[in-house]
C-alpha cells in the first residue's frame, strides 16, 4: 500500500528552494565547467543529483518498505525538479538578469538540458523523480553500509575535483611496488603470530622477496624494454578466461594440497592472504576435507579471476598507455631511483627498500588502531594516486576503481584494524612504544619528503595549511581549551607580521640616512639590511604579540564571553585600521604596507671549513659555503613544518597539564572553577597570551614568506577563517585543527575557480555544523564521549 506523505512535498519544496537559491547565485553554471569524472559527470551534475537524491532520502522515512520509500522519494525529487523547471520557464519568459545577474541564457540553457521546448523541463522533473526514488531507496540501506558508500562517493568527488593538481604525484609502478612489498609483508606477518619482532622480521623478508621479484621482472635494459609488465597485462587481458580458469585450478590444487598434507600453517598463510580455506569438518576424513577444499578453491579462484577481469576492464585506458607510462615516470623521483640503478645496485636497492616497506607493512599488524588506520589511509591514497596517474584523469573506470578501493579498504580495514589493535594491546608497554615510535619515524619521513614529491603549487598550498594550522592551534588554546571566544585573533597575527617586517626590512637608519625607496631594489641587499634577521625577529614578534595579548587581555578578560568576542573583534579592526591609517604610515607603510621583507637565511658557512676536510662530506661542505635562503614554498615548508610541530607539541603537553586542566575547568563552568581555587584572571591571561604568541609566530613566518604585508591581509575574515577551522575540526582537538585547516584552507585553495562561493560555504558550514554537529568533525575524546552519551540518552528517551 503506497502512502505518500505530505512531508515529502514539503521536503521537496524545501530542497527546491535551496536549489533555486543555488541556481540564482550561479553555482550550476560555474560548476558545469568543472568535471568530477572527465567527460561524464560535471560538478553541477553531481550537485544536482546529490540534491535530488538527498531530497528523496530525507523524504523517505526510516520504517518505509521499498515501495513507499521509492514513491515518497520520487515525489520529493519530482517536486524539486518541478521547482527548477518552473523557474527555468519563468527565466525564459522574463528577463531576470536585471536583478539576478547570474541568471544568464547559458544557465537557462543548462537547466533545460540544451532543449528549446518543454522537453528539457519535463526531463528535469523526470530526473528529479528518478533520482529521488533512488535516494528514497537508499534509506533502506543500513547506516554503516550507507556511510561507506557516501564516504567512497566523497573521495571520488574530492579526487575528481583535485585531479589536475594531484594526477602526477605517484606513478602506478611506484604504487604497485610499494603496495605489493608492503602488502605481502603485511599479509605474511599477519599469519605469523603476534610478536613485534616476528611481524617486522616476516614482513621484511616477504617484502624483500617481492621486491627482488619485481627487480627481476622489471626490464634490465633501456626504456624500450620497460614494456614487459605492459606486455604481461595485455596478455592477461587477452587470455582472461584461461587466467580465470588457471586461478581457479590453482586455488583448488592449493586447497587440496593444504588439506592433504595437513599443513596447518600453510592453511593459515592462505587464510592470511584472504583465501577462506574452510575449517575441516572432521579431522579424520581427509578425503572429504580435500574435496571440500578443492571446491572452495575453485569457487574462490573463479571469483578472484572475475574480480581481476573487472579490474582490468576498469583499467583498460590505463594499460593502453602502460608502456609509455613507465618511460614517462622516469623523471619521477621514486621510479628513477630504483629503475635508474644498473646491475647489482638495483637489486641491492630494491631489496633494501622491499625489506623496509615490508617490515613497515608487517608492523601494521601489531599497530594501534590510529596507526593502523593511518597506514590504511596511506595505502589507499597511494593506490588511488597510482591509478589516477596511469589514466591521467578521473574517467568512469577510474572513478569505479577509486570507489572500489575505498570500499575495499573500509570493509577490510575494520576487522583487520581490530585484530591489529588486539595484538597491540597484548604487547608489553615497551614494545608498544617501539611501534608508535616507528610510526612516528615514518610519519616524520613522509612529512620531510613532501616538498620533494609534490610540486611547488601543492607545497605552497600545504604551507598555507600549515600556517593556518599553527594559528589554529593557538586559537584552539584560547577558544577550544579555555572557552574564550576571540574574534580578533588576526590582530596578533598582524602584530607578529608587522614587527617582523619593521625589524627585518631596510630602513632609514640602517641605510645610513638614505630612504630605502631611493635605492635600487636589486641593489638594496648589498647596500643595507634591516635591523636584524628573521631569526631574531620572530621571537621578538612572538613576545610583542604575547604582550599585546596581555595588554588587551587584562581589561577585557573580566567580561562575559560574548562581550569578549565583540571587544576582541573591535581590537582586531583597530589594529588593522591603525596599520592602514596615514597617521602611522611612516612606520607601518599605510595602505602600501611593508615590502621587501627578506627571506629567512641560514648561514652555516662557518661549518664549511671543518667539514670540507672530512671525507665524503665535501659535497655538503660545498653547499654550506653559501647561505641557505628559505625563499620558495619548498623551503619555507620546513620552517612552517617545524612551527606546526612545535605548536602541536606545546598544545598537546599543555592540554594535560595543570594549566590545561584549569582551562578546561574554566571552560565548563567559571564559577565552579573559581571555587576550586583557580585564579580566573591569571589563567585566562595565560590562555590569551599563549594563543597570541602562536599567532605572532605565524605572522612572522607569513611576512617573511610573502616578502610583503598589507593591512588588508589582516581583515576580520582571517579571524573567522581560523575560528571556522577549529570549529569544523572540533574545538579543543589538535588533529581536528589539522583536519579543519585541510578542509577550509587547503580545499578552497585547490578549488580557486570557485573562490566566489568560498565565504558563502563557510557561513553555511558554520551554521550547519553548529546545528548538526557542534562538537566538530574530530572532537576531543571527552566531547566525543559526551556526544555519544547524549545520543544514547536520546535514543532511550525515544524508546
Amino acid at each position: 500500500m503506497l502512502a505518500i506523505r505530505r512531508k515529502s512535498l514539503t521536503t521537496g519544496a524545501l530542497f527546491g528552494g535551496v536549489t533555486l537559491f543555488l541556481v540564482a547565485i550561479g553555482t550550476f553554471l560555474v560548476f558545469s565547467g568543472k568535471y568530477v569524472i572527465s567527460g561524464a559527470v560535471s560538478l553541477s551534475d553531481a550537485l544536482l543529483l546529490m540534491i535530488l537524491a538527498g531530497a528523496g532520502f530525507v523524504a523517505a522515512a526510516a520504517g518505509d518498505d521499498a515501495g513507499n520509500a521509492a514513491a515518497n522519494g520520487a515525489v520529493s525529487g519530482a517536486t524539486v525538479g518541478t521547482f527548477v523547471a518552473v523557474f527555468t520557464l519563468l527565466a525564459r519568459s522574463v528577463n531576470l538578469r536585471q536583478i539576478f545577474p547570474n541568471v544568464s541564457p547559458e544557465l537557462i540553457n543548462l537547466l533545460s538540458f540544451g532543449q528549446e521546448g518543454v522537453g528539457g523541463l519535463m526531463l528535469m522533473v523526470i530526473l528529479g523523480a528518478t533520482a529521488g526514488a533512488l535516494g528514497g531507496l537508499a534509506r533502506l540501506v543500513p547506516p554503516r553500509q550507507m556511510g561507506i558508500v557516501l564516504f567512497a562517493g566523497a573521495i571520488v568527488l574530492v579526487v575528481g575535483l583535485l585531479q589536475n593538481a594531484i594526477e602526477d604525484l605517484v606513478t602506478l609502478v611506484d604504487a604497485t611496488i610499494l603496495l605489493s612489498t608492503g602488502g605481502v609483508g603485511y599479509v605474511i606477518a599477519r599469519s605469523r603470530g603476534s610478536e613485534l619482532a616476528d611481524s617486522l622480521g616476516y614482513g621484511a623478508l616477504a617484502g624483500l622477496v617481492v621486491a627482488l621479484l619485481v627487480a627481476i621482472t622489471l626490464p634490465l635494459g633501456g626504456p624500450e624494454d620497460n614494456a614487459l609488465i605492459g606486455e604481461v597485462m595485455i596478455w592477461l587481458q587477452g587470455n582472461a578466461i584461461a587466467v580465470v580458469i588457471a586461478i581457479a585450478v590453482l586455488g583448488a590444487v592449493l586447497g587440496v594440497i593444504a588439506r592433504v598434507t595437513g599443513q596447518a600453517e600453510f592453511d593459515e598463510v592462505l587464510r592470511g592472504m584472504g583465501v577462506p580455506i574452510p575449517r575441516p569438518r572432521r579431522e579424520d576424513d581427509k578425503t572429504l576435507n580435500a574435496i571440500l577444499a578443492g571446491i572452495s578453491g575453485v569457487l574462490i579462484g573463479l571469483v578472484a579471476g572475475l574480480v581481476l577481469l573487472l579490474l582490468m576492464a576498469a583499467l583498460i585506458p590505463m594499460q593502453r598507455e602502460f608502456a609509455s607510462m613507465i618511460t614517462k615516470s622516469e623523471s619521477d623521483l621514486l621510479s628513477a631511483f630504483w629503475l635508474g640503478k644498473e646491475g647489482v645496485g638495483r637489486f641491492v636497492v630494491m631489496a633494501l627498500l622491499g625489506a623496509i616497506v615490508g617490515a613497515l607493512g608487517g608492523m601494521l599488524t601489531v599497530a594501534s588502531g590510529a596507526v593502523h588506520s593511518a597506514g590504511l589511509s596511506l595505502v589507499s591514497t597511494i593506490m588511488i594516486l597510482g591509478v589516477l596517474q596511469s589514466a591521467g584523469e578521473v574517467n568512469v573506470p577510474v572513478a569505479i576503481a577509486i570507489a572500489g578501493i575505498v570500499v575495499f579498504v573500509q570493509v577490510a580495514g575494520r576487522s583487520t584494524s581490530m585484530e591489529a589493535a588486539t595484538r597491540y594491546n597484548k604487547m608489553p608497554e615497551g614494545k608498544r612504544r617501539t611501534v608508535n615510535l616507528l610510526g612516528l619515524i615514518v610519519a616524520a619521513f613522509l612529512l620531510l619528503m613532501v616538498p620533494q614529491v609534490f610540486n611547488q603549487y601543492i607545497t605552497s598550498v600545504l604551507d598555507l595549511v600549515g600556517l593556518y594550522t599553527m594559528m589554529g592551534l593557538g586559537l584552539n588554546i584560547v577558544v577550544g581549551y579555555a572557552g574564550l571566544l576571540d574574534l580578533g585573533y588576526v590582530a596578533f597575527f598582524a602584530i607578529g607580521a608587522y614587527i617582523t617586517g619593521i625589524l627585518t626590512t631596510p630602513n632609514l637608519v640602517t641605510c645610513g640616512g638614505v630612504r630605502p625607496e631611493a635605492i635600487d631594489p636589486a641593489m638594496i641587499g648589498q647596500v643595507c639590511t634591516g635591523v636584524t634577521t628573521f631569526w631574531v625577529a620572530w621571537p621578538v614578534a612572538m613576545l610583542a604579540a604575547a604582550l599585546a595579548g596581555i595588554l588587551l587581555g587584562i581589561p577585557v578578560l573580566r567580561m562575559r564571553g560574548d562581550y569578549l568576542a565583540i571587544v576582541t573583534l573591535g581590537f582586531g579592526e583597530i589594529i588593522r585600521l591603525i596599520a592602514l591609517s596615514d597617521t602611522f604610515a611612516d612606520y607601518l607603510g599605510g595602505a602600501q604596507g611593508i615590502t621587501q621583507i627578506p627571506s629567512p637565511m641560514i648561514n652555516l658557512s662557518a661549518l664549511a671549513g671543518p667539514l670540507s676536510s672530512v671525507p665524503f662530506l665535501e659535497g655538503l661542505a660545498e653547499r654550506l659555503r653559501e647561505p641557505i635562503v628559505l625563499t620558495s614554498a619548498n623551503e619555507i615548508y620546513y620552517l612552517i613544518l617545524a612551527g606546526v610541530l612545535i605548536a602541536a607539541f606545546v598544545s598537546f603537553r599543555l592540554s594535560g597539564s595543570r594549566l590545561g586542566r584549569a582551562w578546561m575547568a574554566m571552560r565548563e563552568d567559571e564559577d565552579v572553577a573559581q571555587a576550586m581555587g583557580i585564579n580566573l584572571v591569571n589563567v585566562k591571561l595565560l590562555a590569551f597570551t599563549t594563543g597570541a604568541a602562536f599567532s605572532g609566530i605565524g605572522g612572522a613566518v607569513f611576512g617573511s614568506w610573502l616578502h610583503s604585508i598589507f593591512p588588508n591581509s589582516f581583515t576580520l575574515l582571517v579571524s573567522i577563517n581560523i575560528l571556522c577551522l577549529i570549529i569544523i575540526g572540533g574545538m579543543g582537538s589538535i588533529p581536528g585543527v589539522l583536519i579543519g585547516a585541510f578542509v577550509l584552507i587547503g580545499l578552497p585553495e585547490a578549488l580557486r575557480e570557485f573562490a566566489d562561493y568560498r565565504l558563502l560555504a563557510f557561513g553555511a558550514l558554520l551554521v550547519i555544523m553548529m546545528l548538526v554537529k557542534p562538537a566538530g568533525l574530530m572532537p576531543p575524546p571527552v566531547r566525543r564521549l559526551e556526544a555519544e552519551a547524549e545520543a544514547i540518552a536520546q535514543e532511550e528517551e525515544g524508546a
Partner: protein
Amino acid sequence: MGLRFLRRLTLTNVIIWGMGLAMLAFVVIRAVGNLASGAYGFDTFIRQLIFGLAQGGIYALIALGYTLVYGILFMINFAHGEVFMSGTYIGYFVIAAMDESGFLEEHTLLAVTVVFLVAMATSVIVAVLLERIAYRPLRKAPRLVPLITAIGASLFLQQAFRGLFGTGTKNYPNVHLYVLPQVFGDLEWAVDPETGRRVALGLDLISGRYPVTLWISPWGAVIIRAVVIAAAVALAVYLGLRLSRKFKESEVELSPLGILKWASNNLTPVITILIMAVLVVGQLWSLPGDLQAAQMGDEWLIHRLDGGDFDAVMAGISSDDAQTLSYLDVGPVLVVREDDAETITGPDDLRPGSRVAVTNGGLAEEAAHRLDGVEVVTFHSTKDAFLAVLYGEVDAAVEELPVAAREIEYWRMELVPVGAPIIERPVAIALSPNRDDLAEVLNHALHAVVANGEYAKAYRRWFGVEPAELPFEPDASGESYPDVDLIVIGINANQPPLTTLRETGDIDGFEVDLMEAMAEEAGFEIRWVDVTGSIKLIIRPIYFLVFVAAVLMMLGLFWFVQYTKAGKAMRAVAEDKEVAALMGIDVDRVIVTTFVLGAALAGAAGVLFALYTRQVTHTMGFIPGLKAFTAAVLGGIGNIPGAMFGGFFLGLVESVAPALLGIAPQLKDVISFGLLVMVLIFRPTGILGEVLSEKKA
C-alpha cells in the same frame, strides 16, 4: 587604612587605571588644546552635532534590534547587521523600478513609503527565517554555540546577497521630496518654462541638490552655546550633588589614598563631570576664536537678498550687470610713501626699473605685472609688502583699495594709495529681485552725492586721498525722487574700511557714510541689517529627517514595549522564560515578535541610511552592525532607552571626536571601538545599566 587599599591593589588594577588615565589625559589635552587654538570652530561643532545625531539615530535603530534580542535570548545576534542590509538591498530594487517607471517622481511620498514597507518586510522575513532555522534549535545550547551560528549566518547572508545580486555597488536614485515651500521658500528653485521666472520648490527633504544652508545669527550662536553650557553645567551639578551626598555617607578617609579609592568606586560620575567641565571650559575658551573664524562671505547676503529679507545689499559686491551704478572701484591701486605722493600720482609716474611690492596671488599681483618696465617683488602678506615700501626697499606697492586702506589704518603706516585702479573692479549696490524700483532712486541719489561733494568727503575720510574718477558723469539735474520710505540694507560689518563696527558697536565705514548721505539727499530711511558673526551651517535636510524618523520609531517601540500586552509579554519572557510560559505566554511567539520588531526597525534604518549614503552593497551591514552593537553595549545591553542613548551617543562621539581631538577621520572607528573597550572596562553594565534578570548576569 590606606595601606590595606594598597595591598588589595593588584597589578591588573594598576594597568587598567594607567590605561584609563592615559586615555583620559589624551582626550582632555587634545580637546582643550584644539578648542583653545580655534582649530575646532563652533560651526563645525553644530554641523557635526547634527550629522552625529542622524548617524546616531541609525545606530540606535539597529542597536534596538540587538538589545531586544539580547534582552530575551541573551545572545548577540551577530547577523543583525545583515538583516539591516537585506531590507535596504531589496528596497533598492523596488525604488529603482519605481524610479524607472516614473512613479517615484509622480508620487514621491507614496513611493518612499512603499520602499520603507518593503525594506521592513524583507528584514522581518530574513530575521524570522534566521530565528527559525538557525537560532531556535540552539536555544538551550552553550552560549558560544549560538554566537558562532550567528557569525556563520552573518557571513552566509552577506555572501548570499553577493551571489544573488552581484558584487557591484547599487546606487539609490535621487529622491526629491519637496516640502514646506512657504517656509523654506529660498532653498531650491526651478525655472518655470512658461513665465521664465524662478519658482520656489521648497526644501528637498531627501536628496537636495544643494545642501541647506542655515545661518545662525550671532545671538543664535550665543543661545545655542548657552544651552550647551547650561546642559553641561546642570548635569555636572546634578552628578556633583549626588556624589557629594555619597561622599558624606560613605565615610571616606580624608587621605589621598582614601579619596582615590572613593573616586575609583564612583568612576562614571567623576569622569562625566570631568568631561562636562572640559566641554564648558572649551565652549568658553573657544568663544573669541569662533568670532574670528566666523567671518562672513557675501554669499549669504545675496542668499537672503534673494529670499526677500533685504531690499538691497551693500557689501563691496562687484557685478558686471548691476542695475545700480558703481559707487566705488575696489581694484588694485598703487601705494606709495606719503613723501612720494607728490611725485608719484599714478602708475605712469613710476620710473622704468622701479621695484613694486605685491602680495603673491590674487588680483593685485596680476595688476602689478601689467605695469610696464617695473620689477615685481612678491611678499607673503600685505603688511610685509607695505613695510618694504616704508623702508624704501621698493618704490611702491600694489594692493586692492579697501585692503590697502585697512592695512594702512591698522598699522598706522605713512603710506597713501594713489591714482586710479590698475584693474577695474567696480562695486555696486545689489538689489532684491522684487525691488527693481529702487535702482532709479539709488542711482539718482548717487549722482547727487557725487555732485554735492558728500562722496568725496566720505572717500577722504576712509581712504585718506581724493576720490578716483567714477565711471559716470555726476549729474545732479534733480528730477524728483520716486516715493520710497525705507530701504532695508544688508551689510557685512566685517569689511573695513567699507563697513566696519566701531568699538561702541555702531556700524561705520565708507559705505555707511555714503548711504547715509544718499538717504539724506533722497529722503528715505535706512535700516541696516548686519550679518557679521553669523554662523554658516551647511546641512543636508535628510539628516533632520533621519533624526526625527529615528526618534519617532523609537518612541513607537517604547510605547509598544511599555504599554501593549505583547510588550508586557516580551518583558515577562525577558525576565524569566519558564515562569512566563507557566503564565500562559507563548514564548516562541514572543521571541518571534522580538525579532520582528528589531528587524522592522533595522529595515527602516536601512532605507534611511541608504537615502543619505545612496549606496547599497552586500557588505554595508557589517560596520553599522558592529557600531550598533557597540551602541547597545554602551547604553547597557538589554535596556531599550539605553540602546537609544547609546546610539546617539556613539553617533555624536564618532562625528565630533575626530575633529575635536585632531585625529585623522580614518581612525574614527578606532575611537568607537576604543570607547567600547573603555566603557566595558570601567562600567561593564553600560552607561544606563544593563537590564537583565538576576540569573543571567
